[in-house]
C-alpha cells in the first residue's frame, strides 16, 4: 500500500511511507530528520512557520529513535519528525503562544501530548507560529511575524494554527499538532491543502495546552493524508487524569477503520453551509467532492440545520467570555511579561497593555462585557442556552445521517492584510467550523482540490466519538479523488 520513497525527497514523505522506509532499513531517523532540517533551512526564510527550531535536540532524539528501531522497539511514530503549535508546553523549550506576554516563558513541564509523542519516539523539530493565544484566522495576529501560505506566499495560511498547516504543506515536518477552538485546525488545513482533524471534545488531553476557551479547545493533528491522521490520533487519544474533561473510555485503532468502504453511508449536506456570496469555486469543488463520495456508494442527502446561523454569535460570546477568565492569570507576577509601574494595580494594567496584542485585548474586553453584571443573562447565559439548541440540532441530524458534509471555509486563502482592518470579516472565516466546537463533535478537513492554484477543503462532521466513521469516509474520498496538493514551492 505504501509507495516507494525513490520518487520524492525524505521530507516529502507521509508518516506511513517514512515508517516503511525506517523499518525496512532504507533510511534512518537521522537521515530523515536531517532532510527535514535542510528543508526548514531552505524554505523557512519565506514561509516562517516556526517560532523556535530545535535542531540539535532533534538530532539527539533521532539518534535515540534509531537505537529503538534497531532494537526492534519502534512504534508507529518512532523517528518521525514533528512540529507542535507554540501553545503546547514543552519542557525546557520556549512556549510563546506567539505573544509578547510569553515571549520568554520556558515551561518546567511537558503538555500530555508533547510527553506522549516524544515517549513514542517522535522527533520534535520545533514550535509552530500561530495567531496570538490562538485568536485569529490568518496567523497575522502573531506578535512576531506572519506565516505565509506555501501555495502562494502573498497569501495567509489561515489560522490560528497557520504555522503547523504551512509547515506540513511545505515539508518542514511530517506532521504537526494544532489546537482548534472554532476552526483553528480545519480552516488552515483547508487553506494550505493538508488534512486537519479536530477530535471529539475530551478525546485528547488538554493538559499543558495554554488555555483559550476551555469548553471549546481541542488538540488534533495536521498530516499529509488521512491514514497519517488516524495513526497520530491513535497515539494522542486516551484518558488523562490531569484533564478533568478528558473522556475515560477505550481508544480504538483508528487506522484499522480505514477500509475504503463507504457504501450505504448516509451523508447529510446542510443547505445553510452553502450561502450566496461564498468564494468562487469553493462550492463547485465541494459539490464535486460529494459526487465522488456518491460514486463510492455513499448516499448524499440535502438537509437543514436552521440554527447554524446563530453559531457565530454563540461562539463570539462564549469564547471571549472563557478567554477573559482564562487570561486573567497573566498578571506579570508568576510568569510572563511584567510591566513597570509604582502601584500593584498600575503594573497589572501596564503588563496587560504591553503584553497583549489588539485581538487578544478585543476578546478580553468582549468577554468581560458579556460576563459583567446586568449583561450576563442577556449574553453569556443566552449563548449557553442556544449552545444547547445547536447541540440538539446536531444530535437530531445524526439520528438520520452518519456524517454531515460541508465546505471547511467559505473562501480560499486570501492575501495578507486583506481582512485585518475589519474584525468581523476575519471572524466569518470560521463560520462553517465553529458549530462542531459548540457541539463538541469531531470534524475533519480533507483537501478537495484547488481553485486557481489555491486549495479548497471538504469538511466532514461526525457524532460524538464518531472518529472511525469520519476517518473512513475521509480516507475513501481522498483515495478516490486523488488530488495532488503539493505546493509549487
Amino acid at each position, binding site marked *: 500500500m505504501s509507495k516507494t520513497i525513490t520518487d520524492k525527497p525524505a521530507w516529502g514523505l507521509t508518516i506511513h511511507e517514512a515508517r516503511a522506509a525506517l523499518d525496512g532499513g532504507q533510511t534512518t531517523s537521522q537521515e530523515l530528520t536531517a532532510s527535514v532540517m535542510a528543508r526548514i533551512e531552505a524554505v523557512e526564510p519565506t514561509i516562517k512557520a516556526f517560532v523556535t527550531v530545535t535542531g540539535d535536540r532533534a538530532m539527539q532524539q533521532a539518534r535515540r529513535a534509531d537505537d529503538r528501531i534497531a532494537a526492534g522497539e519502534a512504534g508507529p511514530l518512532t523517528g518521525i519528525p514533528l512540529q507542535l503549535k507554540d501553545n503546547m508546553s514543552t519542557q525546557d523549550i520556549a512556549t510563546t503562544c506567539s505573544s509578547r506576554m510569553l515571549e*520568554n516563558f*520556558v*515551561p*518546567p*513541564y511537558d503538555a500530555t501530548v508533547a510527553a506522549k509523542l516524544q515517549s513514542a519516539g517522535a522527533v520534535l523539530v520545533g514550535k509552530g507560529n500561530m495567531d496570538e493565544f490562538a485568536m485569529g484566522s490568518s496567523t497575522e495576529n502573531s506578535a512576531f511575524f506572519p506565516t505565509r501560505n506555501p501555495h502562494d506566499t502573498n497569501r495567509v495560511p489561515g489560522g490560528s494554527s497557520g504555522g503547523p498547516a504551512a509547515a506540513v504543506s511545505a515539508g518542514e515536518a511530517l506532521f504537526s499538532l494544532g489546537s482548534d477552538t472554532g476552526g483553528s485546525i480545519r480552516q488552515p488545513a483547508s487553506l494550505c491543502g493538508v488534512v486537519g482533524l479536530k477530535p471529539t*471534545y*475530551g478525546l485528547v488531553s488538554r493538559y499543558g495546552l495554554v488555555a483559550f476557551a476551555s*469548553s471549546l479547545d481541542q488538540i488534533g493533528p495536521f498530516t499529509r493524508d488521512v491514514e497519517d491522521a488516524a495513526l497520530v490520533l491513535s497515539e494522542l487519544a486516551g484518558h488523562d*487524569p490531569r484533564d*478533568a*474533561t*478528558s*473522556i*475515560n473510555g477505550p481508544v480504538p485503532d483508528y487506522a484499522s477503520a480505514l477500509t475504503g468502504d463507504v457504501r450505504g453511508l448516509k451523508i447529510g449536506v446542510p443547505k445553510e453551509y452553502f450561502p450566496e456570496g461564498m468564494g468562487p469555486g469553493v462550492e463547485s469543488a465541494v459539490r464535486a467532492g460529494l459526487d465522488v463520495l456518491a460514486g463510492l456508494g455513499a448516499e448524499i442527502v440535502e438537509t437543514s440545520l436552521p440554527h447554524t446561523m*446563530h453559531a457565530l*454569535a*454563540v461562539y*463570539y*460570546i462564549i469564547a471571549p467570555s472563557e478567554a*477573559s477568565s482564562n487570561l*486573567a492569570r497573566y498578571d*506579570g*507576577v*508568576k510568569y*510572563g511579561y*511584567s510591566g513597570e509601574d*509604582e*502601584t*500593584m*494595580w498600575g*503594573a*497589572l494594567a501596564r503588563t*496587560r*497593555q504591553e503584553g*497583549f496584542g489588539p485581538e487578544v*485585548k*478585543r476578546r*478580553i*474586553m*468582549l468577554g*468581560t*462585557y458579556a460576563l*459583567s*453584571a*446586568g*449583561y450576563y443573562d*442577556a*449574553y453569556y*447565559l*443566552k449563548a*449557553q*442556552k*442556544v*449552545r444547547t*439548541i445547536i*447541540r440538539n440540532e446536531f444530535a437530531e441530524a445524526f439520528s438520520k445521517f452518519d456524517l454531515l458534509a460541508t465546505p471547511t471555509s467559505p473562501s480560499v486563502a486570501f492575501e495578507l492584510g486583506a481582512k485585518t482592518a475589519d*474584525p*468581523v470579516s476575519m471572524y466569518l472565516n470560521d463560520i462553517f467550523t465553529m458549530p462542531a466546537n459548540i*457541539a*463538541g463533535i469531531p470534524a475533519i478537513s480533507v483537501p478537495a482540490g484547488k481553485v486557481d492554484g489555491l486549495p479548497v477543503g471538504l469538511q466532514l462532521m461526525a457524532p460524538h466519538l464518531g472518529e472511525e466513521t469520519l476517518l473512513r469516509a475521509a480516507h475513501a474520498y481522498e483515495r478516490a479523488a486523488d488530488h495532488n496538493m503539493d505546493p509549487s514551492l
Partner: protein
Amino acid sequence: MLNSDPNLMDLSTHEVEQIAELAKVGMTPEEIEVMRGQMSDILDRFKALSEVDTEGVETTAHPSGVVSVLRDDVPEQGLTRSEALSNAPRTQGEFVRVRAVLD
C-alpha cells in the same frame, strides 16, 4: 453594573473605559475609541440571539458530559520550588516578590 439598555448596542466611551478597568487592560484614549467602535459593531451582530426562543432550555457549559471529576486524595510530587519560580519576573529567596497590595 453598567448603565445602558442591552438592546442599544452602541457602547459609550465611559462604558468601554469601565470594561477596560474591570479587565485590567491599560488603554490610551485613542485605543478606547477604536475599541468602542469595534465592540459596538461586534455586539450588533449578536442581537439576533435575543430572537431565539430558549424558554425551558438548559444551558451547556461544556460538551463532554463529564461531571465533577475528583482524584484520590493522595499526595503527588508537583513542580519543585525552583521550577515553580523559574519563570517569575521578580523573586526574593524562595518567594515570588510582588508590589505592595495595600498603600
